[in-house]
């Protein structure tokens, strides 16, 4: 022992020993991880969507099967790219335009609306555009446009081809107004939570999904932002599950597991959403409304680009 200590007393030898020890730790852990490797599916989900319901559906699937699942949380654009690379084999997203784009490219083999929520117009409590008096979503947007032009209001757009953004573009088209380039029309290119917080801080209007609003309100993260227009039949925010193409080499060996996951999401997963999320108005299962939701998705998927 004394010999070892004497040898290590030279600083360069001690450093050499530390480096060797570090490399040994690296090699041992890398080999250990390699030996531990087992089958698992890597899937992707929108961050808000994951916390709004997908998390419990995935947990339910894990408990009912022996398949391990690893979840990557990203926005829809990223997730679609990861699907086409085979880096993930299944995704939960909410952007009809991007979904249809990758569907047409052959990246997605199957996709289905598995849940939906309602879109609302939220804005500052003093409501300078008088959106609370609107009779339709189009009317609400017209009022915001007029107030914006008069310098009384601002509108926050996600601008990322998300479901909210696509629905927003569609509504602007229907009003005949084009807010792009106006000083009061602000694009965030951020997620739903960040966009809502920006709207709260800027005292601006935005189109957002009701589930996100309720979740943020319960957590006391938004105080001034109020629901000023809501319609419990329309417009809808559609959440889609997408399965990678069977031609994708990286996911081929996991095909049986992926199909099992799809069946779970569209089957028992629906009951989880119904029980845990629908009572609070956060998320609703697609079961029983498949055709109607499919048609809504198809019409929304044509808007964007």
């Amino acid at each position: 022992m004394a010999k070892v200590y004497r040898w290590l007393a030279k600083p360069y030898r001690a450093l050499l020993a530390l480096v060797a020890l570090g490399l040994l730790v690296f090699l041992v852990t890398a080999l250990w991880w390699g030996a531990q490797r087992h089958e698992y599916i890597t899937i992707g989900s929108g961050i808000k969507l994951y916390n709004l319901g997908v998390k419990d559906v995935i947990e339910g699937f894990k408990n009912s099967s022996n398949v391990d699942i690893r979840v990557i949380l990203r926005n829809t654009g990223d997730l679609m790219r990861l699907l086409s690379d085979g880096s993930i084999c299944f995704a939960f997203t909410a952007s009809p335009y991007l979904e249809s784009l990758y569907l047409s490219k052959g990246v997605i083999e199957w996709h289905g609306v598995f849940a939906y929520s309602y879109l609302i117009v939220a804005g500052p409590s003093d409501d300078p555009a008088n959106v609370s008096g609107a009779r339709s979503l189009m009317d609400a947007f017209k009022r915001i446009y007029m107030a914006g032009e008069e310098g009384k209001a601002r509108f926050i757009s996600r601008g990322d081809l998300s479901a909210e953004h696509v629905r927003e573009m569609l509504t602007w088209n229907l009003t005949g107004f084009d807010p792009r380039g106006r000083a009061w029309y602000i694009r965030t290119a951020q997620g739903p939570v960040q966009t809502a917080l920006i709207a709260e801080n800027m005292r601006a209007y935005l189109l957002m999904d009701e589930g996100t609003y309720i979740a943020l309100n319960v957590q006391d993260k938004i105080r001034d932002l109020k629901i000023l227009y809501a319609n419990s039949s329309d417009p809808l925010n559609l959440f889609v599950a997408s399965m990678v193409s069977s031609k994708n080499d990286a996911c081929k060996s996991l095909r049986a597991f992926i199909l099992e996951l799809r069946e779970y999401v569209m089957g028992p997963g629906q009951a989880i959403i119904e029980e845990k999320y629908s009572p609070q108005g956060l998320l609703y299962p697609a079961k029983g409304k498949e055709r109607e939701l499919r048609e809504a998705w198809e019409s929304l998927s044509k808007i964007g680009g």
Partner: protein
Amino acid sequence: MPEPLHAVILRSIYVSSMAALLAFIVGSFIVIILLRMPARVSRNVLSVFEGLVGIPPIVVGVFVYMLVYPGGPLGPLKLLYTPTAMIIGEFLVALPLAVAFTYRPLESLWRELAELVESLGAPRFKAVLLVLRESPPILLTTYIISFSRSIGELGVALIVGGGIDGVTNVMTTAIALETSLGNYEVALKLGIVLVSIAVSLIIALRLAGAKIVEAV
């Protein structure tokens, strides 16, 4: 179930210390090679490394992703979304810093010792050995800088690690996730924990380094 905080902290320390170790070893070798080159060439090469110090980690993350994704040249190794991929990426982020910060002090040491070795008529490789013997404090600083750069890095951790709970989630990805959910208070607390850990580890390394130097 989200994994406990200590597991995330330990993973952060593991990934960053391994990336810093690789950056430190490879960086030291690069510096030794540069020192043996003509001064004009080595200065130019050093300028490249100095320029790369400011490279956004997200660019490095995308580069490593293109290497390790299933269709990439290293795809068959199945490294994507593993700590090993994160170590590779963070090593690349820390390497330019390791080279840039080691070169100048080692260069002056090299000049002194090379002259001494030459005046004594000993072979030139003896100068390399002498530099290595005298360099532990400099190399320790290199390691610490590389470690600091790695532990606070997000781009690589997010792109090639994926921030998967229980597998590749580290402090920076946890902070990014909380921020995207609007949980700024939690993100700030995690940030304070991250900084505290980094500072404590660096102080411990410095003290250990000082002890080693004193022991000569």
